[in-house]
């Protein structure tokens, strides 16, 4: 399940709701990854744009991969502004055994960083500044350049 929220994520609400939803599904490991906006480089927070159709297709492909190992993925992400010390991103793996779960949370989060169509901006003095240096070109980038 993929959920998008306006502004910061309510970590307690989301984690508790997910746990209540899944605790009788007989998974042995529940591994959330919670991203929290760090106060650094003088920013007031981050801001995000998301292209939902491709994000959803990317997530569904990962969900199928997880299901083949008896596992399940959950993900929440913020749209718009997210102040320092609040959360913009939570993903979680549910798996029967720990080894599959620990591998999947690593691979899923890493591929998320490389492939999810989400654009990050630093919030500095009320302005959105594209975090170009921390961003990664998607697969096939440069196709239209001369």
């Amino acid at each position, binding site marked *: 399940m993929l959920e998008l929220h306006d502004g910061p994520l309510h970590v307690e609400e989301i984690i508790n709701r997910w746990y209540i939803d899944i605790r009788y599904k007989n998974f042995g490991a529940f591994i959330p990854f919670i*991203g929290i906006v760090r106060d650094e480089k003088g920013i007031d927070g981050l801001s*995000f*744009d*998301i*292209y939902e*159709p*491709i994000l959803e*297709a990317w997530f569904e492909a990962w969900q199928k991969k997880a299901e083949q190992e008896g596992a399940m993925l959950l993900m929440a*992400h913020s749209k718009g502004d997210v102040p320092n010390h609040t959360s*913009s*991103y939570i993903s979680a793996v549910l798996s029967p055994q720990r080894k599959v779960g620990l591998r999947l949370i690593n691979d899923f*989060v890493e591929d*998320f*960083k*490389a*492939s*999810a*169509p*989400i*654009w*990050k*901006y630093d919030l500095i003095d009320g302005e959105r500044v*594209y*975090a*170009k240096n*921390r*961003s*990664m*070109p*998607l*697969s*096939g*980038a*440069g*196709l*239209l*350049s*001369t």
Partner: protein
Amino acid sequence: MARIEFLGPIGKEPVEVDIKNLKELKEIFAQDEKLKEWLGICAVALNDTLVKSLDVAVKPSDKISLLPPVCGG
């Protein structure tokens, strides 16, 4: 006319272009000074699927998206 969308930080309004394939789009964009800095780093999606080749036919009802470098989380 195919519709071209410029996602995220590109900050450009969508345009409609009369093209038969992506090669023609590349030629049109080559003349756009403001797009130059983006073309080298943008991926391209046709109807929400990333494409890797310019030899892709484009129909008038198609949607083409330019996706700059990403950083979720």
